[in-house]
């Protein structure tokens, strides 16, 4: 392996694992903010910490292979949450359209879909990204304890 004078030291590499626990704590704070348990400023600061951390983890390339394996599993968990969220949103829309069509067929009037109104929180980005963030850190932790093989 060629010598790299700027290669991170062991302590710098280990520090990346500590940064993940800090990000995990911030994601819990952000989720608390999303459900109204934490203030706006606290939530904003937590979002800043998580956002910066995730960007560094995404574009950074100076991690060892174990960390990359854990990171990839965390990313997979986060993407799964986003996928489930969007699928749920889609299912609600399907129900809404079906309700409208059924009402139109049965009563000859255009349905209003009041009964199947999409919950407001399902259309908001912050709860989704908060859950995706926390899913990343939970996935990372799970892979850390269970193993990345």
């Amino acid at each position: 392996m060629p010598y790299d004078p700027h290669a991170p030291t062991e302590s710098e590499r280990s520090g990346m694992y500590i940064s993940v626990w800090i990000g995990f704590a911030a994601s819990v704070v952000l989720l608390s903010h999303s459900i109204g348990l934490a203030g706006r400023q606290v939530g904003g600061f937590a979002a800043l910490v998580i956002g910066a951390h995730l960007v560094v983890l995404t574009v950074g390339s100076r991690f060892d292979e174990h960390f990359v394996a854990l990171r990839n599993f965390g990313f997979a968990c986060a993407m799964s949450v986003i996928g489930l969220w969007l699928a749920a949103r889609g299912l609600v829309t399907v129900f809404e359209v079906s309700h409208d069509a059924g009402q139109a067929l049965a009563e000859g009037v255009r349905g209003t879909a009041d009964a199947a109104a999409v919950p407001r929180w399902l259309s908001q980005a912050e709860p989704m990204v908060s859950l995706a963030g926390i899913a990343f850190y939970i996935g990372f932790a799970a892979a850390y304890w269970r193993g990345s093989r």
Partner: protein
Amino acid sequence: MNNRLKVLRAERNWSQAELAQHLDVSRQAVNAIETGKHDPSLPLAFRIARLFDLSIEEIFHDQA
């Protein structure tokens, strides 16, 4: 995959952090390899083998 990394490290009186420094990985990565939670890539396995002056097969054993 089983391995003799912990034994080889102990023979040299190295800490996990010291071995990690030799291998350009984190202490957590060494711990994960020793406990079988992470299978090293081929390049890392070669680095480990070169460090201990052994072949990969003398350090890592397939569980099958």
